[in-house]
């Protein structure tokens, strides 16, 4: 098990470096001199040339990449052109909001998703099953911004129960968590249902019934644990993707998270900030997948023992 974990971690290191390289190169080929963007239109060409030289932007690409990588490993992702603050500070400021949003919406998603999936599987082909699966399909296909605005309109504007924008109190967290959780719950519900239905066809389920176990115990003890193996993996990946920033939800509800940080970097052509935040988000996803893999092996004794 430990060997497996170490192996998986070692495999993800080259992947991370490759990701940094790709993001780095992608932003190199974008047209426009970042210095002129940073200094505004009125700066003279002389000044721009001098600053470019000073910042080392005339060095060969590979040299700058190595520098960037070495600094990044030490937590230094450079300085934002527009905000003149270290990018790592900007990320550290916005990440807690993204984490809060990710945790609350993941909880909503998992609770709704797993319960709906189990009930649907047990009541397969009944009206309840169709209703739940329809509900989750709506969740999957619902555009987040539209659903978010609908909730804002109903619970914020019309009923006045909940705040519409900002992220300072727990009440602020409810609407974003509900909409983001609902739209993510559909995938979990459908996966839980199909996984559980598949598992319930297994011979060992028949063995469990033949022992005299109550049907609900058969489902929960013998079905669910096996059925959750792919679901937990999906949950970990979903959580990682939530942690990497929910651009639309953050924007609609005015939550200062990683997603909003990335959008503002794009809008202001703040290349180092964009680069830093994209790389940060991607790292979160890679780590999330790593955790998903390790969880998977932990749940499945066959892999665990290797």
């Amino acid at each position: 098990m430990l060997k497996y974990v170490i192996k998986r971690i070692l495999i993800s290191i080259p992947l991370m470096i490759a990701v940094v390289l790709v993001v780095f190169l992608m932003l190199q080929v974008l047209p426009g001199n970042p210095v002129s963007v940073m200094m505004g239109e009125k700066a003279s060409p002389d000044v721009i040339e001098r600053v470019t030289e000073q910042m080392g932007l005339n060095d060969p690409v590979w040299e700058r990449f190595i520098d960037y990588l070495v600094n990044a490993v030490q937590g230094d992702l450079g300085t934002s052109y527009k905000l003149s603050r270290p990018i790592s500070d900007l990320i550290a400021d916005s990440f807690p909001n993204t984490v809060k949003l990710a945790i609350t919406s993941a909880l909503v998603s998992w609770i709704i998703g797993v319960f709906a999936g189990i009930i649907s599987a047990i009541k397969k082909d009944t009206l309840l099953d169709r209703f739940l699966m329809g509900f989750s399909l709506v969740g999957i296909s619902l555009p987040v911004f539209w659903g978010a605005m609908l909730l804002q309109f109903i619970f914020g504007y019309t009923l006045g129960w909940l705040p519409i924008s900002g992220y300072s109190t727990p009440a602020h967290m409810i609407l974003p968590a509900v909409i983001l959780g609902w739209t993510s719950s559909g995938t979990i519900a459908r996966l839980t249902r199909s996984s559980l239905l598949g598992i319930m066809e297994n011979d060992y389920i028949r063995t469990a019934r033949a022992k005299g176990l109550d049907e609900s115990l058969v489902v929960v003890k013998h079905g669910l644990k096996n059925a959750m193996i792919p679901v937990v993996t999906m949950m970990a990946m979903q959580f990682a993707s939530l942690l990497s920033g929910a651009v639309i939800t953050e924007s609609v509800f005015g939550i200062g998270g990683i997603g909003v940080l990335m959008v503002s970097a794009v809008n202001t052509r703040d290349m180092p900030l964009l680069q830093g935040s994209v790389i940060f988000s991607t790292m979160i996803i890679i780590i999330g997948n790593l955790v998903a893999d390790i969880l998977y092996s932990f749940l499945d004794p066959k892999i665990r023992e290797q």
Partner: protein
Amino acid sequence: MINNDSIFEIRGLKTQFFTSKGVVPAVDGVDITVRKGEAVGLVGESGCGKSMTAMSVMQLLKKPGRVVEGTIKLNGEDLLKMNKREINDIRGNRISMIFQEPMTALNPVYTIGKQAMEALMIHQKISKEEAKAKVIDMFAKVGIPEPEKRFSVYPHQLSGGLRQRVMIAMAMICNPELMIADEPTTALDVTIEAQILYLMNQLQKEVGTAVIMITHNLGVVAESCDYVYVMYAGKIMEEAPVKELFKNPLHPYTFGLMNSIPKMTEVKTHLYTIKGMVPNLLNLPQGCRFCPRCDKAMKICTMYQPDLYELEDGHKVRCFLYNKEVMESGK
């Protein structure tokens, strides 16, 4: 049965599958009697309804299958009239079952010890420690080497033979009155098959559990049973004490089965050599179900279904050859 020590009686059992193509009469009026501590064989070709008979008893039939008629009595109580709770009190406790495929019958995410303890924990009020001790005892009894160590091993770490021993241990753990074994050795190789059959015989004698041994191999019946039912296309064709059946087989189908017994020393390659095909249950012949494959078939066989005729010594056979009136009238 007149015999008073019968503990388990199936009477007129009909199990059908309601499919889009029609009603499949998988079990069609079956009577089976099991006496205390007796080993009863249920033998027949693939698809004749052996497993569905067992599943009807355990009430593990899957949709669209359903018992439509009959009674299944354990010590006089009809299982078919019981509610789910009462059935669960019987399953794994008073009647247990072993399945054909040991590789998939155990849950991969729990240790075998935990799975074996489960039946004990639900049916008997004992502590975890007592249950564990009992399971380790039982593992030793069924010949699992190093039972304490094996207790916390996962199914995939065991061979097929060992897993079937685990299944037997699980089935015997509550000292059931009846154990149904559905082809418990078919998936195993011949030497292991012999060991497992021997083990089951030993346990059965020791504990006094009655067994219904389901198999398509008369050799297994000869080895391990006292009484045998021969089943074909949902019906019992012949029944007799094992010795009597082997000494004096009556039904043409039984002859066919006897000729195709694989020798215990041979590698199982093919199983049956009775000419013709197993009948399609959706489109059964009007007369005797074995008629299209029977080399002794007479005219009457194509028109009427024979009853189960009782001869001397309790030997019963479903064939017009043994009906005096039919034979004397010369049809």
